[in-house]
């Protein structure tokens, strides 16, 4: 699919059953939501990044994904810096926050508002949550065979039709990206140089991608529909399976470890405040 290195199918994570991987995604998401400490949240995001790299997810893909998050991250940082005072006072009990920047009075609507250091740190914590969850997607998708994903989802009682549609959608994305690339290339081969255009003109040119792209998607999905019908696909869960989804010792060990980790995180949070905003860590 071009987004993962060829070795990714042999990475430790790719050898696991999809169920412990889904559990991993679930547990890490819960932990990311529970922890408000930017230090722990950052650590978790860093670990997710390392896991992606170890699983062969392309650096370029990660860079692009994180780059797309950048405007949202900036927005979060600014809004939390400006408007999170109440929440922070409630969580830390601090009567006053440390100002970092005060907006001049003459600025409309937010004039006089002050960006607090604590608010920005709190914003950082939200950004790390967002980064962690963004990194979990390729970690699951790129290390799991689509057929194995269907099988695993059926095992956890997701109806076959829904599991098939989900897996097919994931498989469709690389095709979509390939089409976008082919059309962009075709435009450049028609003498267009979007890089030397202004933003409005460039947007107008890119908007024209839609015509061949939508047409291509319609044709492909209709063709796929005909192919599936011809292969007796009806979406019924009443079917047999070539492969069996069995949990191996490694899968069970990961499930146990995840359960223990979740319990430990929750106990540490509620009992000792570890992971709380303004807590010991």
């Amino acid at each position, binding site marked *: 699919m071009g987004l993962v290195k060829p070795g990714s199918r042999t990475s430790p994570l790719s050898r696991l059953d999809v169920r412990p991987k889904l559990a991993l995604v679930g547990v890490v998401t819960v932990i990311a939501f529970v922890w408000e400490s930017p230090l722990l949240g950052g650590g978790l995001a860093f670990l997710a990044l390392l896991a992606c790299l170890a699983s062969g997810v392309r650096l370029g893909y990660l860079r692009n994904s994180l780059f797309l998050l950048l405007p949202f991250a900036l927005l979060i940082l600014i809004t939390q810096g400006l408007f999170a005072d109440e929440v922070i006072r409630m969580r830390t009990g601090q009567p006053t926050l440390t100002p970092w920047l005060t907006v001049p009075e003459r600025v409309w609507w937010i004039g006089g508002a002050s960006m607090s250091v604590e608010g920005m740190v709190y914003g950082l914590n939200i950004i790390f949550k967002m980064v962690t969850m963004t990194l979990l997607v390729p970690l699951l998708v790129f290390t799991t065979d689509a057929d194995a994903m269907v099988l695993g989802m059926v095992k956890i009682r997701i109806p076959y039709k829904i599991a098939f549609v989900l897996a097919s959608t994931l498989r469709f994305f690389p095709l979509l990206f390939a089409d976008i690339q082919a059309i962009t290339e075709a435009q450049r*081969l028609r003498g267009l140089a979007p890089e030397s255009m202004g933003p409005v*003109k460039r947007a107008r040119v890119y908007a024209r991608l839609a015509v061949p792209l939508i047409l*291509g998607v319609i044709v492909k999905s209709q063709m796929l529909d005909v192919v599936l019908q011809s292969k007796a696909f009806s979406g019924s869960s009443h079917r047999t399976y070539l492969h069996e989804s069995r949990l191996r010792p490694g899968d069970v060990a990961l499930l146990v470890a995840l359960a223990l980790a979740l319990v430990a995180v929750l106990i540490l949070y509620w009992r000792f405040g570890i992971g709380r905003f303004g807590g010991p860590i």
Partner: protein
Amino acid sequence: MSVRSGQVTPLGSPCPAGRVSEWSVQGAHPPVAVLDRVSYLYPHSDRPALSNISLEIRRGEFLGLIGPTGAGKTTLCLALNGVVPQFYGGRFFGRATVAGLDSLDHPISRLARHVAVVFEDPETQITATSVENEIAFALENLCVPRDEILRRIAWALEAVRLEGTEKRPPHTLSGGEKQRLAIASSLALCPDLLVLDEPTSQLDPVGTQEVFATVRELNRTLGLTVVMASHAAEEMAEFADRIAVLDRGEIVQVGPPDEVYADGVRLAQLHLRAPQVAETFALARGKGLSVPRIPVRLQEGIALARDLSMQHPLDQPVACPEGIAGHPLPGTDKAPLLSVRDLHYTYRDGPEALKGITLDLYAGEYVLLVGQNGAGKSTLVKHFLGLLRPAQGQVLLAGTDTRTLKVSALARRIGYVAQNPDHQIFNATVEEEVGFALRHLGFSKRQVRATVDESLDAMGLSDVRDRHPLALPRGDRARVVVAAILAMAPEVIVFDEPTTGQDYRGAQAILDVSRQLHEQGKTIIVITHHLYLMADVAQRVIVMGAGRVLLDAPIREAYHADDVLASTRLTPPQAVLLAKTLHASFGMDDLCPLLTPAEVAGVLARTGGPRWDS
């Protein structure tokens, strides 16, 4: 039509016993499928896609479907498995039964037990991530037990000679292997009928041969009934028992290949093509040679040509005829327009795609770039276009290193017509499409208008300037793209597989365009597998294989270098193979390396063999 009798052991088939025994005996059972006065109109269409079709498909036969684009071949294929009309809707008249089941009364999933379909595009029809899962998918849907699925996978892979690929991801297979996988997936269903809709149109010649040979073997050894729609006339003549000819939704002829393909006049009226061997002898007959029966298969033609040449030697040497192939190649005294120097390129995580390519292309040439899939043709052209930058070596356009030029700047000098013209169409009218790039290149309104008029006129599109480009037939869509490229006045135009997926008329229309452009002085580069279509348009052939240039020669020399062509999975056109038979008899000194059916027919007619008038 050959009639088989007796029982054939079907390679240890795991199919239900009743089904297997039915496969092997022909004639003793009712037909596999019967179409009785079937007519069909797609939704919102007032023109029937099928019109009053009555056809019996006999058990154990290989039935070929031929016809120009839009004749109804695909619709007929889909009517056999119930997709038409159950999936598409529309209006269906008459009755279609397969294995005794009415296609209207039984759901597609039920009919899928009896009719398996292989589609044109090897990419779209593969839905699983491993070979074994691909074969298993339909069996799982039909609730076949796991042990049985395993048995059928092993059997089906053996039958199409893909053993050992069970765990491989399908995208790592070649085009021919992917289609054989699709056939294996179908075969595993133990169907009564295997339907193949243009399964070889995207394949190179050897991939095409592989698919035909596999299907024929299954038909011969297992007695599997086959219906195949295809434009591949040579292979159809070789392998089919009967041919049904469709035109505008109607069956206009059904008969053995010898009968259908020997009638060149009728085929021409329908814009169809006979195998070159049949065309050659029909032309020779037209020149007075007495041929009792027009051969439609290569070996029959070779035998006849050998007999004629042995019995009736040439009275004088035959020089090469006038024509584009006889034009001298531009001399090396002129500076090359495009120059490639020791070009290497390796794709990320892939093998080395180009291994030290060095060649020169001169202004005004018509060059073919040929070679098997993966030979490096597209990679080389992407370097011309600036889409790829050399890892090592240089590409020079009129002496300028292309690394110093932007893609958009190169595009004004080298036009590119993609295999799928739809990827290059973005606008709501033909006129806007042709002027699209010009508006962004700073042309004034008046200049845009004048240039667009000129390009539309050159491509014969003035009458459709206000129509949506995507509403035009595929051949015209390609012309729209060519017109848009012409508007930028490039010196070089590259056609990437322009005839793939086209019927004979469509292919000829695009080649006519390329010929016109060449006559206007443009340099033409065509990437193609269809050597038989190019013999009277091109001058020079660059044969590529495994990232290297294997041969760079005038077309007469290249087409006769069958060892080099074979090393990159290409086969010379039948006319060249017939010519080689004549060369074996007459010697090369006395006979020019012939290329086309007309040239070979000319020599056959001169052998002094029996004549109509004697």
